[in-house]
């Protein structure tokens, strides 16, 4: 297929936002890209891995986001163009390096691409990366569609090289995961050479030391770089205005909110009264451009998602400009026209515009249909929570953990972490997991809980983490727990890949991002070397797993590690390969009369095993079952039969 890598200059293609960003990186002549996977940012790097060979790139999945940013920065210091991308939480991980990086400055162009998730479509927070641009005092760009997502990458890298600092391009889920029509640009044929020049005077930006010191003068230089960026921003092609010369209402917006605003204005039919100033360069705000537009309208509606960052920046600027432009009336978050949480959509923006203009929106038009459809959906669309896939080893692992904690009977609990296994917390899980926060926090919290025996706490403390999470952030917490003799059991749910984001490799595997053979770091050996007692089981062997875990809980001295190793059901190696043929023997399953309380379908709840209402018995759903065979071990009557496939 003509894909985003091979597509020729001028071709019109349908690209997902993250593909467009990857194409933009190729058109910018990037050499190095590094990241840790995280939705919705993952596909930026994943796509670049596909282009690595043909375009002579170095692309890696790093052990965490901070390391990834450091890898990308090294390329910049050696004169190459580089990028790093991450989900919003990943930007937190980079923060310590980022705030020093922006003081030391960069050489080759470097762009950092956080992808935010307003509404937490695929996250457990909806924090704002834009705040970091302000904190780190670096320029911020926000594309509104796939075309801009592509075009902004070369622009950002040029800007980065001009001001000698890192530039942020912020995406959101609705951009990163939206396909749009993109016209491709040219990919340069260059062969950049890397060299780290460091023998000039210490403060020489091209040949000196790379350091934030002397801090105050570097800080001053950093702020001058921002002013330099403003010169470009004042005439940036990414800032556009559509509307009447002097609109009754001026909408100032950015990112995908521009598309919501445009459509809302069109729907309300107020194109002759409302103008839209779309900003692609949102920090710092270009004052002369703002002066021009504020001067032509008295009423401003700022449309942005979650926090009122642009709104507050604009208000501050409007105060400075007031002697020239007059006092303005602002609408947005502060007056409640738009919510400060969650994502926006066309309807919300239309309602806000209608309210400000004192106009009717069409929202009442479908009242009776909506009421009836909602009624039918309430009755006819059963809730569908996220759940472990058919054949998921985590279901088996957490099943055993829950059983063992019940058998142990001391009210033990699990501190959870970031990965598919977090679903244990939801309605579709087993509920052994009681906390969830950041990558690695499960084991950090466990380390703390495990020291509370002195205050009378008698509950067994467990943490779980995935194999990729182990390398990302669990290791320091584990070291802490071992060194401080915290009494905990750390269960590593090793499914041989960064599964939740689509199975990217990690340091525990023998393969890197582009498929080269590399040394694997052995989790068991690492834990043993740190000083923990280490056990290993296959979670699909429930007898051994439960016996081992009970034994570990009984030992109340220091850190125990249990590695439950079984490959993810969705992994390319395993997908569509059934180990067993499963069937429910109807003469043995006696349904509700059994006394098992429908253990298989009411409690275990694998989507591949369903309850046949009419026959009053369990049944395998052939379209969904992947043949892992685990359910055969849970039926107390042995009605679920498994036959090994040859």
């Amino acid at each position, binding site marked *: *297929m*003509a894909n985003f890598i091979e597509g020729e200059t001028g071709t019109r293609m*349908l690209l997902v936002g993250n593909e467009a960003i990857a194409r933009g990186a190729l058109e910018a002549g990037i050499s190095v890209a590094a990241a840790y996977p995280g939705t*919705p940012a993952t596909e930026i790097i994943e796509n670049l891995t596909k282009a690595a060979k043909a375009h002579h790139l170095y692309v890696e999945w790093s052990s965490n986001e901070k390391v990834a940013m450091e890898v990308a920065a090294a390329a910049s210091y050696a004169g190459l163009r580089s990028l790093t991308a991450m989900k919003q939480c990943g930007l937190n991980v980079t923060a310590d390096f980022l705030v020093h990086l922006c003081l030391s400055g960069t050489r080759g162009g470097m762009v950092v691409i956080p992808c935010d998730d307003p509404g937490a*479509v*695929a996250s457990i927070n909806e924090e704002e990366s834009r705040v970091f641009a302000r904190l780190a005092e670096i320029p911020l760009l926000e594309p509104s*569609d796939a*075309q801009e997502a592509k075009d902004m990458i070369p622009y950002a890298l040029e800007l980065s090289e001009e001001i000698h600092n890192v530039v942020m391009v912020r995406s959101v*889920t*609705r951009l990163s*995961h*939206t*396909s*749009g*029509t993109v016209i491709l640009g040219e990919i340069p044929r260059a062969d950049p050479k890397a060299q780290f020049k460091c023998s000039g005077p210490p403060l020489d930006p091209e040949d000196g030391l790379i350091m934030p010191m002397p801090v105050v003068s570097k800080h001053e230089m950093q702020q001058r770089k921002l002013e330099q960026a403003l010169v470009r921003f004042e005439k940036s092609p990414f800032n556009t205005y559509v509307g009447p010369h002097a609109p009754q209402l001026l909408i100032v917006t950015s990112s*995908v909110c521009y*598309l*919501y605003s*445009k*459509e809302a204005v069109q729907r309300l039919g107020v194109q002759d009264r409302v103008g839209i100033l779309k900003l692609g360069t949102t920090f710092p705000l270009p004052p002369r451009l703002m002066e021009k537009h504020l001067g032509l309208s008295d009423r401003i509606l700022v449309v942005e998602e979650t926090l009122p960052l642009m709104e507050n920046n604009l208000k501050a600027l409007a105060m400075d400009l007031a002697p020239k432009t007059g006092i303005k009336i602002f609408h947005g978050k502060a007056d409640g026209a738009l919510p400060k949480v969650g994502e926006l*959509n*066309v*309807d919300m923006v*239309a309602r806000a515009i209608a309210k400000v203009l004192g106009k009717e929106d069409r929202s009442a*038009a*479908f009242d009776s*249909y*909506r009421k009836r*459809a*909602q009624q*039918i*959906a309430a009755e*006819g*669309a*059963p*809730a*569908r*929570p*996220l*759940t*472990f*896939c058919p054949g998921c080893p985590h279901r088996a692992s957490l099943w055993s953990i829950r059983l063992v904690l019940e058998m142990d009977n001391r009210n033990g609990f699990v501190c959870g972490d970031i990965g*598919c296994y977090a*679903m244990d917390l939801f*309605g*579709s899980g087993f509920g052994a997991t009681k906390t969830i926060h950041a990558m690695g926090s499960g084991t950090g919290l466990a380390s703390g809980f495990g020291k509370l025996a002195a205050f009378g706490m008698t509950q067994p403390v467990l943490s779980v983490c995935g194999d990729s999470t182990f390398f990302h952030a669990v290791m320091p917490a584990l070291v802490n727990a071992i060194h401080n003799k915290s009494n905990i059991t750390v269960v590593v749910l090793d499914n041989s890949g960064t599964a*939740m984001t689509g199975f990217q490799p990690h340091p525990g595997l023998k393969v890197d991002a582009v498929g080269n053979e590399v040394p694997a770091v052995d989790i068991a050996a690492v834990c043993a070397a740190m000083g923990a007692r280490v056990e290993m089981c296959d979670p699909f062997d429930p007898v051994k797993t439960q016996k081992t875990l009970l034994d570990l809980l009984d030992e109340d001295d220091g850190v125990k590690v249990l590695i439950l190793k079984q490959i993810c059901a*969705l992994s390319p190696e395993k997908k569509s390969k059934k180990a067993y043929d499963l069937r429910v023997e109807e003469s043995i399953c006696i349904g509700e009369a059994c006394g098992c309380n*429908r253990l298989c*379908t*009411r*409690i275990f*709840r*694998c*989507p591949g*095993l*369903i*309850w046949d*209402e009419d026959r009053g018995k369990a049944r395998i759903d052939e*379209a969904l079952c992947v043949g892992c065979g685990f359910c055969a071990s849970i039926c107390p009557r042995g009605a679920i039969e498994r036959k090994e496939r040859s």
Partner: protein
Amino acid sequence: MSGAKLTSDPYNLIIAGVGGQGNVLASRILGQMLLRKGLVVTIGESFGANQRGGSVSSHIRISSESTYSPLVPYHAAHAVIGLEATETFRILSEYGNPEVKVICNTRPIHSVYVISGECKYPKTEKIRSWMEELSAQCWFLDATDEAMKLGSPVYGNIILIGAMAAIGELPLDREAFKAVLSETMAPDKMEVNLKAFDLGSSMIRTGGLA
């Protein structure tokens, strides 16, 4: 850019389904087919953690002129392709309207709450009468069952794409499908996919029967 003439501009098509059903691929195939007609296509998709059995929908916005926002406004869908019937009701409750057309797969996917008995999956007759009530026109296709006869449930989505082409709402034709297929699929998969597409089209002509 000015592409083929549309019955509505933008034309809003939603594909409703469950994580793992191949929603994303189906929407991209449709998008590529429409792109070939010179149309501007925007597809907003909810994926990510949603591979794990949750509700998934793709919002396809088709225009002869400009890029639209990634989500269809409330109650503004022109057509819905339901890979799963109960998910189709969920979508209609937010995006449906009396004019909407629906093509719906009959194969149920039970959510964990249905499996556990906490929720009931509606009876087939109920599903049909509700769908008729909530749409201007609807077609029920045994797409998954027919696909399994072709060798794999994944062809069910191609059957539904063939059906969407046959209802004549959008400039989707067999030639464009073939061209997109030759770019996206291995050559040995060509024949079976074309067969699935044709089967979907013929099912519309025969009122949902294979």
